[in-house]
Structure formats: C-alpha cells, structure tokens
C-alpha cells in the first residue's frame, strides 16, 4: 500500500476526547464529532443516541470530498468550513489540520457566531494533537508489533 495506517493512541485519544467534550459545553451544542477524511469516526460526544454516527461519519467525509472537488474546479484549495441550516438543527463542518473533520450539531440554544468562535479554538488544540499522532505514525512503534502478530489463522477464523 502506498500509505500506511492512521493510528490512534490512548494518550492522544484522551486529549481529543477532552477537546471535543469541552467544545460541546462551550458551544452549547447538541453533539460534536470528529471524523477522518476517509469517513471513519474518531470521537464523539453529546446527545448521540438517536443518531447513526457511522452513517453520519461516512456522509460527512463524502460531503467534504465533494465540496473539495468543487473547490478545485473553481481554483480554490478547499472549502474548509461548511454550514447547513435546518428548521430545527444546524450543522457546522470544518476541516482541521487538513486531515480530520470536525462536525458540530446545534439548535437555537446556541448560535452560528458562538459555534464558529469555539470551533476555532478547539481546532488549534486538535491540530496540535493530530500533528503529534502523525509524528508518532512516522516513528512506527507498537502497531508494527500488533500487525506482525496477526496470523493466517486469525484471518481464517474471522469467517468461521
């Protein structure tokens, strides 16, 4: 494969979850998600019981990919913020550190101004953590051992 895996570690996961939870509180949001650009859910917080987060993550990535394609066509690099306004709930979607996507769902208890402000601050923190992860991935440590230990038997057993 031309790219290696995106690897999440305990420590950074803790940092990311803390930022996501703080953003939820400070922005008065209903829920907050972090998704990677390939559509995998990284972290979430808030009132997510009735939402299918896996679907939401994949559609978010599709949405950013599609608008990113449109951006290139008109000579922009990327649209780093998208805002969708609904009757009840609104979606604020932003790209963080070129690599992950931050989604905030909010209703009239908050406002676009407040969300935008808090997202900005959270993005800086998240970008730092993501950068740390990327450096760790380049160093390649424990995942090598996990992946090496996978046996043909393990793979076979998945289908038995």
């Amino acid at each position, binding site marked *: 494969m031309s790219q290696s*895996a995106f690897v999440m*570690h305990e420590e950074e996961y803790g940092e990311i979850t803390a930022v996501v939870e703080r953003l939820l509180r400070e922005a008065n949001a209903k829920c907050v998600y972090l998704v990677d650009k390939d559509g995998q859910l990284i972290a979430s917080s808030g009132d997510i019981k009735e939402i299918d987060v896996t679907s939401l993550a*994949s559609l978010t990535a*599709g949405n950013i990919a599609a608008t990113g394609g449109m951006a290139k066509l008109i000579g922009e690099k990327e649209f780093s913020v998208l805002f969708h306004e609904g009757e009840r709930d609104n979606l604020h979607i932003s790209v963080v550190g070129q690599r992950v996507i931050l989604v905030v769902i909010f209703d009239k208890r908050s406002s676009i101004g407040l969300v935008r402000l808090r997202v900005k601050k959270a993005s800086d923190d998240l970008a730092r953590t993501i950068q740390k992860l990327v450096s760790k991935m380049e160093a390649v440590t424990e995942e090598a051992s*996990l992946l090496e230990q996978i046996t043909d038997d393990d793979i076979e057993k*998945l289908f038995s």
Partner: protein
Amino acid sequence: MSFINYSSREINCKIVYYGPGLCGKTTNLQVIYKKTRPEAKGKMITLATETERTLFFDFLPLALGDIKGFKTRFHLYTVPGQIFYDASRKLILKGVDGIVYVADSQIERMDANIESFDNMKLNLDEQGYSLKQIPYVVQYNKRDLPNVIPIDELKQALNPDGVPDFEAAARDGIGVFETLKTVVKLVLIELKKSA
C-alpha cells in the same frame, strides 16, 4: 487507508466495489446487507438517482469479529459506474485498502468492462496508488444470463495479473461472499506485511 485505534481497540479498513454501470455493484452490497447478522452490520446508505443508479456512493459498514483483541470493521463502498460520474469515482477511491472489480459478463458489455477497468487504473495512478500494490479481486457477474462471454476470455481481458477471481450471479446471491471474504483476507495480509 486503514485506521487503527488503540484506545477503542479497532481496526478499520475501506473496500471499494468498482466496475461499469449496471454490472451489479450495488446488488453485491444489498446481498451482503441482507445476509449479514443484525449485530454485525450498520445501516446501508444509498445515494442514488430516482432510477436506482448510484449517484455518489453506497456505503455499508460491517463488523467481522476480533483479531488479537481488536474489533475488525470493514467499510464497503460502491462507485457510480456511469461514465460521466468520474469525478465522484475519484473521490471514493481515496484511502482505499482493497478493491473488488465487478465485470458484467454479457457480450454487449465487454467494451464497457474494459473501459471501466482502464478508468480504474488511471484514477488509481492519479492518486499515487497502483493496482499492483493494492489488494484486489475480480468478480465476473451475471453468469446466470444466456448471452455471456466465456470465462477464459474475461480473464484474459480483465485479470492480466492473475489475482483471485470469481464467477457470480449477485442477484441470486451466488459468489458474493466468496468475493468479499477473499478481498478481506488480502487486505489483512497486506496490513500485516506493511508492519
């Protein structure tokens, strides 16, 4: 690109079904969805036109079980096969870990098969991947129809590298899981090799 999460102990991989319009990519996912236990699958998302042609993608998340205490999850996507949706196809290929190339066995679809296969190689190249490095399998679909091309001819045109290939009648569920299992295995073997 696979995603390994040490905190939630998960391995996530992305598999893309590619092939010409109407070859049966969406049908493959529908069959997998129908025949998979409820606890092993998420919701299937279909972004399609009113005539049920894929517009952007289909998406089906599967949970296949544990490896070394890590849950393995596979995200299956289909691309839209119609020629003019090429921009969407490129987007969906991003981050791909494994490919199922689905061919339509009908004689009159041979040109479409070859065009789509070449288009796939081109789109992979454009993103810095190469078909030689990505785990992939080939499925010759619609074998139930009377006017099909002999398998040898299909192999020659669409499987020059001799990767694992399967005859299928996806609408009747034949060959669908064999194809899926093999691409999943190849993806995991590749992941192991990358360590």
